[in-house]
């Protein structure tokens, strides 16, 4: 559709104002704050459970005295990806549910630009979610560690995991926008995302890591340098990042393409 030329300053300005309008949509209702509060609770539970997890017979979980165990603990800071994908899905489907898509497309009829702006805006929202989850999770973990025997994790590894969590959450929020545009029905989309992330994918990643590591959540485990049950290994950071970016690009392009011609009634 579009020719590959450098955007003129006017076009660049138009794109940034569309992203800014999408961000104003997010911040002008309270939903994003509620989800952010829920994210902190969720990450907090993950941290506490990892620190105080009792030993289970038959299942080997990396212990806190090992580097792998410490990486797993800080990887819990990236647990906010669930809320990142949910807010992306909600952000797209509420335009359809409340029929605000009409005025959105009257303000900017070039639909590809609208979709790209929305994905860019939710990448920002997802990154903020990721950063808050990391800050909250790290603070809680560092506060709880003195109560347990634990190993050491170099600061560089902590920074790498934090960066991975922020980028991962940004990508998951974009993925959420794309899935919302493809499924369209808000309840079906959010339920589908929840069932997939919390149940189906989580089980595959935990119990069948050879398959699970190629799924978006498993790829995130690779980015976060986590280790699974019985020392199951996920993808290296770079490969996990490529897989997750791949999913985001494929779904994003599909979403933009189907939105391009669809009648808005």
């Amino acid at each position, binding site marked *: 559709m579009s020719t590959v030329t450098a955007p003129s300053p006017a076009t660049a300005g138009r794109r940034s*104002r569309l992203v800014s309008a999408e961000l*104003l949509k997010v911040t002008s*209702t309270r939903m994003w704050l509620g989800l952010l509060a829920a994210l902190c609770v969720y990450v907090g539970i993950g941290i506490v459970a990892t620190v105080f997890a009792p030993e289970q017979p038959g299942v080997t979980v990396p212990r806190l005295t090992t580097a792998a165990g410490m990486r797993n603990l800080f990887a819990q800071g990236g647990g906010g990806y669930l809320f990142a994908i949910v807010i992306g899905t909600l952000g797209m489907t509420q335009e359809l549910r409340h*029929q*605000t898509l009409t005025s959105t497309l009257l303000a900017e*009829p070039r639909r590809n630009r609208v979709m790209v702006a929305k994905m860019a805006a939710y990448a920002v929202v997802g990154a903020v979610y990721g950063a808050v989850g990391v800050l909250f999770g790290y603070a809680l973990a560092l506060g709880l560690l003195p109560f347990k025997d634990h190993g050491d994790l170099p600061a560089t590894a902590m920074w790498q995991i934090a960066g991975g969590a922020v980028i991962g959450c940004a990508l998951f929020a974009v993925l959420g926008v794309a899935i919302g545009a493809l499924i369209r029905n808000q309840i079906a989309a959010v339920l589908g995302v929840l069932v997939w992330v919390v149940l189906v994918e989580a089980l595959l990643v935990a119990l069948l890591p050879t398959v699970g590591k190629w799924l978006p959540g498993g790829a995130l485990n690779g980015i976060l340098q986590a280790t699974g049950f019985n020392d199951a290994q996920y993808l290296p950071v770079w490969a996990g990042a490529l897989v997750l970016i791949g999913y985001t690009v494929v779904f994003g392009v599909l979403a933009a393409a189907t939105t391009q011609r669809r009648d*808005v*009634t």
Partner: protein
Amino acid sequence: MASPSPGPLVSDAPAGGPHGARIEVTGLTKTFGSVLAVDDLSFAVEPGRVTGFLGPNGAGKTTTLRCLLGLVAPTSGGATIGGRHYHDLHEPMRVVGSALEATGFHPGRSATAHLRVLARAGGLDEARAPEVLELVGLAESASRKVGGFSLGMRQRLQLASALLGDPGVLVLDEPANGLDPEGIAWLRAFLRYLAGQGRTVLVSSHVLSEVEQTVDDVVIIAQGRLVRACPLTELTEHGQRLVVRTPQAAELVSALASVAPQARVTAVEDGSLLVEDVEAPVVGRAALDARVELHELRPATSDLEQVFLSLTGGATS
């Protein structure tokens, strides 16, 4: 309640100035699956006039407007504003302001925030938001969440978003729905005022009486097809029109056919007949000669709603 002469808040473009653009619909056809919603529809809307886009519910008005605004892709044909398709307009909100039915608001967003989002996306000054809220009489509800708005308040907010870009063309879909009588009077004055500045005003309605005091031109459609496009005055001066009510419609039609073959008879939904191009005494004499019982025989010229119903009803049956 807003003042009916909102001088400083919309720009004072001179009549016939650069503002208004011509809307042109050409051979527009749209099918949804097997349903033919709009059928080879062509008409034009001129600047400086208020044009009523009329037809019963389900006639295809909203689909036509959505095609005009690039929201629905026509099956064939198309519609332009000032010669350009909506999606080719550089800054569409500065050219066309629209308020469509089934356009929603996020219930948790305030009226001001809703308008600021649109202004930002459309490249408009966000300071316009409080101005247009003032203009439509919603200044006091500016920071309230739209979820608590009445239908009339939502209509006013729609109108406010249409006015954000101070556009030369206004496309309003059933804007009087949900307005109280005072609001309708205000809307009429406001639309006249906007057209008086040279803007193009296209306003749809399924009730002619709602707009007949306001519009200069009418475009009437039924079942997706054009029924009539003309100045409002021509609608009432269309030949000799009579309303006839009789229990023996078939006998009257055959009696008329022999004495006045030029007469056209249309059955109207309420059971009466609309008889055109023939004088009342001729009909009365024909009925008497044929011993046809008449319950009503009167000129239909002053009853716009009847004309409207007969035009649209005729295409339905």
